[in-house]
């Protein structure tokens, strides 16, 4: 997150709608520590009112809430034309629960218990998508360049040969350059699987990709973020 430290940023505004006081307080505190502004609503009705009145970058919504459940809250919000990205947090973590959540208008779904790093990474990605620049045809990180139309990847003057899946992996990483991308996010977005492998299968793919884009170059671009995931960025800038 130091990558964008030089830019003066308007702090990200989050609304957390969660009825469990302790986990809500933990989230608010943790978000403040990374420099976000986080508001808190304790039930569905209050959450809906706040979400409608405030200008938030991302809403973090628990599914099971008093007074009005999370999915109906999102439904009501979307019906009124509010397009604020919503991340659903829920103890119901099976594939069909997830599909239900996304169909109800959620943008991402994270089952409890979750790691804060995972939540943070997903919120970053969500907020960037919201009002971010239109999808570019070329991604650049340092001297690494990926052309989405011709499927060409070059670093410096050298052209790199990537397999289709490696290309998609790199494409996703570069789309979110400067942001932490977790293993589950990669599995979901690059492979479209929503299960939890018991092995380090994603790490192996990353190390293959790394050997292609970083090996033999002075400055590594693909970084491992301990306890969270991966990030592609130009370390110097």
């Amino acid at each position, binding site marked *: 997150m130091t990558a964008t430290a030089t830019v003066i940023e308007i702090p990200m505004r989050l609304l957390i709608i969660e009825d469990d006081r302790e986990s809500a307080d933990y989230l608010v505190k943790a978000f403040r520590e990374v420099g976000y502004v986080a508001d808190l609503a304790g039930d569905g009705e209050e959450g809906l009112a706040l979400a409608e009145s405030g200008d938030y970058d991302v809403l973090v919504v628990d599914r099971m809430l008093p007074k009005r459940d999370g999915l109906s809250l999102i439904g009501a919000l979307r019906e009124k034309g509010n397009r604020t990205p919503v991340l659903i947090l829920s103890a119901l*973590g*099976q*594939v*069909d629960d997830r*599909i239900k959540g996304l169909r109800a208008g959620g943008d991402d779904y994270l*089952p409890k*218990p979750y*790691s804060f790093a995972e939540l943070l990474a997903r919120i970053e990605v969500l907020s960037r998508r919201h009002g971010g620049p239109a999808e570019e045809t070329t991604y650049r990180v340092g001297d690494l360049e990926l052309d989405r139309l011709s499927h060409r990847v070059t670093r410096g003057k050298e052209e790199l040969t990537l397999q289709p*899946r490696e290309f998609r992996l790199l494409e996703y990483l570069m789309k979110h350059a400067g942001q932490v991308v977790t293993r589950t996010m990669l599995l979901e977005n690059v*492979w*479209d*699987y*929503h*299960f*939890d*492998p*018991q*092995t*380090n*299968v994603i790490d*192996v*793919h990353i190390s*293959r990709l790394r050997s292609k884009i970083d090996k033999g170059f002075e400055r590594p671009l693909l970084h491992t973020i301990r*306890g969270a995931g991966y990030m592609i960025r130009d370390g110097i800038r």
Partner: protein
Amino acid sequence: MTAFGKLIRTTAFRLTLVYLFLFALFSASLLGYFAWNTRRLITEQITTTVNAETGEISDIFSRRGLRVLVHTIENRALRPGANLYLVTTPAGQAIAGNVGSLAPGVMATSGWSETAYRRLDDQDAADHFALVKVTELSSGFRLLIGRDLEERRRLFGIVAKAAQWSVLIVVVLGLCGGIFVARRVLRRIDAMTGTTQRIMAGDLSGRLPVGRSGDELDRLAENLNAMLERIEALMTGLKEVSDNIAHDLKTPLTRLRNRAEEALAKAGTEAEYRSALERTIEESDGLIRTFNALLMIARAESGQARGNMDDFDAADVAEGIHELYEPLAEDGDLTLRVKTEPTPLHGNRELISQALANLVENAIKYGKPAPAALQLGAGGLESARKDILIEARREGDRVLLSVIDHGPGIPAADRKHAVERFVRLEASRTQPGSGLGLSLASAVATLHGGDLRLDDAHPGLIATLAIPARSGASDGLAVQTHDVSQKAA
């Protein structure tokens, strides 16, 4: 409730009563119809004979006069079983015939009537009834000819008696039959109730008695037994799960707690705290994974995941999983290959992918050839033995997704056991993993109406998900198809 009370409350008995009533009504009306018809017939017969005789005697009177008439009448009246005859003068005085007395006014009106009468020669005082016809002859003489109705009355009596008896017999036989059937049914139902009560009390091994007749009660009992079988299996499974959860979740929880305690007591530097905390997180992630897998199995087994079924090609799943795991296998010094043919399938793509992924992970974890086997083999054989093959093919109406490795395999005796939850065979206790991979794969196969087969690859293991091509809920097919197109887009 008394035994008798129970008996008369049975459906069989109540049905018997209804039929009894219907049969009694039926036999009564049958006899009634018979009686009425007989009566009509007898009356018709009497009318015909009386009409004929009246004609004959009027003729005699008009042609040959009163004397011959009186003579003829006297003659006929003396015959045994004779009809009734009476001739009166215009003044109303009887001059011939065998009738002693009549109900008043009968002779005054011409035509048919039924009347009480007494014969001249009758000793007893009782009145008889007769059907008579009075005709006016010329010059004021009146002629009565009639027939006694005793015969008709007797016949009627016989029919009435028959009706009484038959109704009585129907009722008695019906009641006996009803009680017999009801008792038989009741005995069997009581046996069933007894068993169910024992089962409710906790003895799940109890089964309902099944007779040999193959009737509806036997079929019911068989079905209930099958249901009990399933419930017992589920309950046993549940018990095993809770036992295993207790073991497999408590062990890492204890480890977790011990480490935290130890760090709190001993760690001095920040680095020590950090590493203790990192291990704590790692351990709890493992716990969460185990928990998720358990929930997933429970859901697949209970059939709740049937909602998200669509049409897809199992070959795509095989190739996708191959693509995902190929680098991992290579890191483990193994070669992951894939061989497919078009295998259209209707099912939950995500779950089938996960089941196949579990099989591949198992093969990568446990499928390494034993070093001894490698040394024995020649060069070419050696490389073949390092192969793991993912295969998607059709066999009849089933789609087979197999993962074939050439590791040590699973001894035939252990194969059934290996699918159970939390079982990690002795040889693999040291490897990481929740021990739920095969049970999840098996639960997914069951959800789709198929099964998980484990076979010998000589050496090695063939794990196969055998799934009917058109499995499970065919409803929801139309609803789900747009998901496929979305995914494709």
